[in-house]
């Protein structure tokens, strides 16, 4: 896949020029593998301990491989661990998270694409300032918006609902999705858009026929970014949900953070990995397009 990315840009790329000798290649591989270990270590700790009985963890040796391999913690985290009054495991909360993440990612990506399209191909006086204002919105600390946002959601009548959560994530996702699409579309030849305009094509026709078909890579970047942030969000998920709309992260937190009870670390780790599976899945499946998407637009000036 790497070569695929490279060959699409024949004539570009520093790797086409640099040559390395056998000795230095040995060093390079060693370094790369050492860093693999650094990145994998926490995952190792999590996986290993999720497969041990609790007694083995309490006896110490938290870094060691399991003596008695067990999958019971996984089963427990999924369907029978206590995350509230009822011992439901994490299972029921998956659906809540998916109901929230899918629309929020979809809408913010579409809005980002349209905004990027307007800001680069239908420019108007003051468009740079509008973009700057949208972008600065990314930096607002979320702890600060909690109370006023709760008030607004209440006024709009969507407090404590999945649509309310979607709305919140949408609002604070606009900045980054617009940034990605704007930088990407900026590379896109404006002449093509001009020509289509002269042919009488309208705003949405151009967007659909000309811009969208080439937006794949950046859409992947945007979706990965939004999916990760929204799926992993705890603060909004806890504050703006009801008993029937609590997302996964809140349930995971309930599983892990219980303050005055026995800590079942093996179940906690199993639950933690489980909660991360959807994002891991997105990274592994879409990861190959990720660099290509970044390369195609967002990091080039």
């Amino acid at each position, binding site marked *: 896949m*790497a070569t695929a990315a490279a060959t699409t*840009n024949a*004539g*570009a*790329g*520093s*790797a086409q*020029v*640099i040559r*390395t000798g056998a000795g230095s290649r040995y060093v*390079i*591989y060693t370094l*790369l593998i050492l860093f693999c270990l650094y*990145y*994998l270590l*926490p995952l190792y*700790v999590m996986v290993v301990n999720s497969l041990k009985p609790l007694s083995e963890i309490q006896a110490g040796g938290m*870094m060691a491989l399991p003596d008695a391999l067990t999958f019971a913690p996984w089963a427990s985290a999924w369907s029978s661990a206590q995350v509230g009054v009822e011992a439901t495991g994490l299972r029921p909360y998956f659906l809540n998270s998916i109901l929230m993440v899918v629309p929020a990612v979809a809408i913010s990506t579409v*809005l980002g694409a*349209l*905004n990027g399209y*307007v800001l680069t191909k*239908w420019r108007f006086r003051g468009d740079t300032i509008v973009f*700057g*204002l949208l972008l*600065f919105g990314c*930096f*607002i*600390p979320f*702890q*600060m*918006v*909690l*109370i*006023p*946002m709760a008030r607004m959601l209440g006024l709009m009548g969507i407090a404590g609902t999945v649509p309310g959560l979607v709305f919140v994530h949408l*609002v*604070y996702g606009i900045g980054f999705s617009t940034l990605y699409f704007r930088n990407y579309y*900026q590379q896109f030849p404006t002449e093509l858009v001009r020509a289509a305009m002269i042919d*009488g094509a*309208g705003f949405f*026709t151009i967007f659909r026929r000309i811009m969208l078909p080439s937006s794949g890579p950046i859409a992947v970047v945007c979706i990965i970014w939004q999916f*990760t942030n929204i799926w*992993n969000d*705890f603060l909004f998920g806890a504050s703006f949900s009801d008993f029937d709309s609590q997302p996964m992260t809140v349930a*995971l937190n309930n599983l892990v953070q219980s303050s005055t009870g026995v800590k079942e670390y093996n179940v906690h*780790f199993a639950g*933690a*990995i489980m*909660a991360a599976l959807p994002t*891991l899945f997105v*990274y*592994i499946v879409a*990861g*190959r397009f990720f660099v290509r998407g970044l*390369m195609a637009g*967002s*990091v*080039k*000036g």
Partner: protein
Amino acid sequence: MSVSETSGRAGRADWLRDALPKLVLSPSFALVLIFVYGFIVFTFYLSFTDSRILPSFGLVGWQNYTRLFSLRAWDIAVKNVLIFGSLYILICCVLGLALAILLDQKIRAEGFIRTIYLYPMALSFIVTGTAWKWFLDPGIGLEAVVRSWGWTSFEFDWIKSSDMAIYTIVIAAVWQTSGFVMAMFLAGLRGIDNEVMKAAQIDGASNWALYRRIVIPQLRPAFMSAFVVLAHMAIKSYDLIIALTGGGPGTATELPATFMYSYTFTRNQMGIGAASATIMLMAIAAIMVPYLWSELREKK
């Protein structure tokens, strides 16, 4: 919706054609105006009130600010964010660039290695916090393991030390984001125009010189993007602190984000919380506005 349908009535069509892009942009703009800038104004106002458990509107002048600056925890938070922010951004950039260059040498299994470097970004710290905490804990983590291998004088107890704990936060934060930065630089490397490099190579420049003089300067836009993403993460770091040290030992790893949360919500001193949020936003603006200004103006 379609412009062509209304082409008969030329005046309206023209108006629509002019206005449509702005109409499309306006919902986003309106949302951000209310939910970002409206809230900033609201917070600024709160910082001058006697709000405690809920917003209240009795004005108290600069009292919240004078109290804020007299708090030792705030000094620590500010000092920490400077240490943390600069080290985090610097190390992520250096490490990200180094890994990108190494990975760009036509490596076998590049896709696989890249996924390993990238995956931490997919996990939240609610998930990985405990694993890091264990790993850094001298009693059960790295120190204990290395000692069990026979190196009994090995010491790695930073997380337990008031002076060093902030650096363990850096280690975990770098772990999370450096892969992402690596991907940004890798993308930049792949997009470089290599004609100049070829010419320099013929002139006998070494690989090191090629990177230093030609490649890295061309990565400036990637550096800039990385800086925006990293600065944004550094300022918002919250889960990480809570999961790893809870602000301790003592108050040694307090950051402005944890300070703000704790004063607004745990300590019921919303006025002071709002004052710290205001200072934080002003600091962010002081860094970001000049950057955005120069970036956006260049592109006109």
